[in-house]
């Protein structure tokens, strides 16, 4: 206990820092995602997600088309 140490020893200890690697440290308490449940589907979140879905499908088709053209699998280049 610090109170049982002599003042010089105590002062010496207070000038020291202990650095702990994250993997050696006690696990920290984080946000409990399970208790939060799903994100509230507000109109803006819903629209963002639907737009994303359409965007991804369209883009993947276009890139596939481009690659096929560049590879000349149909006998001509774009």
């Amino acid at each position, binding site marked *: 206990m610090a109170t049982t140490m002599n003042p010089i020893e105590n002062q010496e200890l207070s*000038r*020291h*820092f*202990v*650095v*702990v*690697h*994250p*993997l*050696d*440290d*006690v*696990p*920290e308490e*984080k*946000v409990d*995602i*399970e208790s*939060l449940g*799903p*994100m509230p589907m507000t109109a803006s*979140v819903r629209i*963002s*997600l639907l737009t*994303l*879905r359409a*965007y*991804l499908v*369209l*883009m*993947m088709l*276009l*890139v596939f*088309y*481009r*690659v096929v053209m*560049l*590879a000349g699998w149909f006998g001509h280049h*774009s």
Partner: protein
Amino acid sequence: MNNKVLMMPAAEAATEVVAPVRGRVVKSKWTRDLLTFLMVFGPGLIVMVADNDAGAVSTYSQAGAQDGTRLLWVVLLLLPVTYFIQEMVVRLGIATGKGHAAMIYQRFGKWWGLFSLVDLELVNFLTLVTEFAAINLALTKMGFDPRLGVPLVAAGLLLIAVSGSYRRWERTVVFLCLLDLAWFAIAFWVRPPIAQVVRGSLVPGLPPGGITPNLMFLIIAIVGTTVAPWQLFFQQSCIADKRLRFADVKWARLDTFLGACITITVAVCMMIAGNASLAHGFKFSDPAQMALDLGSFAGGFVRNAILLLMINAAVLGTTAISLSSAWAYGEVRGWPHSLQMPVRKAPGFYLVYLLCVGAAAGLVLIPGAPLQLIILSVQVLAGVMLPSAIIFLQLLLNDKELLGEYANKPWNNAVNWTIIVVLFVLSLILAAQVAAPNLFPAG
């Protein structure tokens, strides 16, 4: 040694134990900060340097070999872009202690979780094929039989991951990342035109042909290779696996920033190597051939160094991408998924890693694939998919219920929306170019 009181989980409620915590005692604040940084250091550097994978070597050197130093400014512009995106992942990972796939699954529901997972696994697998294709190519140019070399590299990749120690994996991979600095020696060796490099970096300009379909394709490939979707998943899972703490946020940011600086300057070196090949009149076909071309006038060091660095880039890319797949799959399935666990405790996690590495390695040994085309196309595919991945990230980072004080500030949102708009514009230009190629004059 330092002792901390550890509360056991509910199953062992009311049991209070004193868990020994291994730490190092230091005397000065400066040493404390340096040591803390070195302990936190890793995920940011690895994600950034692994991003300069085989596809990136190919894309950057092609950009240099095709357009000289004129597109250097594009690469430099990507430094803040890549940092800001990954910095959001740092906050998300530290605040939640969970991976990105788990986060999407839990906050957006099963459908979106699976959707993101399938997207990720698909692009990752295609990218892994390109990594092994590059290893195959480099080994062939070095005179090694790829039928022997590729399985050996795959076995090495398995060995570095299955030790059951995150730290051992991280140290090995950080060492490989530092080898990437040899690109500086190559750039110096080929005698770069300094004035031209400075001008190309600071003055935005275009090649003489103007905006052509191929130039746009190359720019989107550069963006796609510098900022890739797997990076979001990888760094967040890596941070969760390393159990970074709230107090580590500033060091994790510094780690990410240093990684971004290294990856971008190495990319510039790759373009300088490509530019040297252009200056000597060589026509670019792939980076391995470029190594032989440069070697013909710059010597054996440059030739062998580029070929070895190609393999190193592919190895780094493979371990990071395969891990991002394995972590993501493990998170969504609820399997144990940690490099800290031995194989017997996380068999599913290591099996996904094994399958990713093994299947991609096996596929490239089948002859006849147009390697350069596959490499460039994967980068473009990743570039096109990135805006969607960032929007997911943006929604999560604005989730105050989830992140509290770590949620995006207004200035974060302003920067991120600017990045998203730029990425969308690039993707839409690609779409327009594919749908109506005549909009763009031929170069």
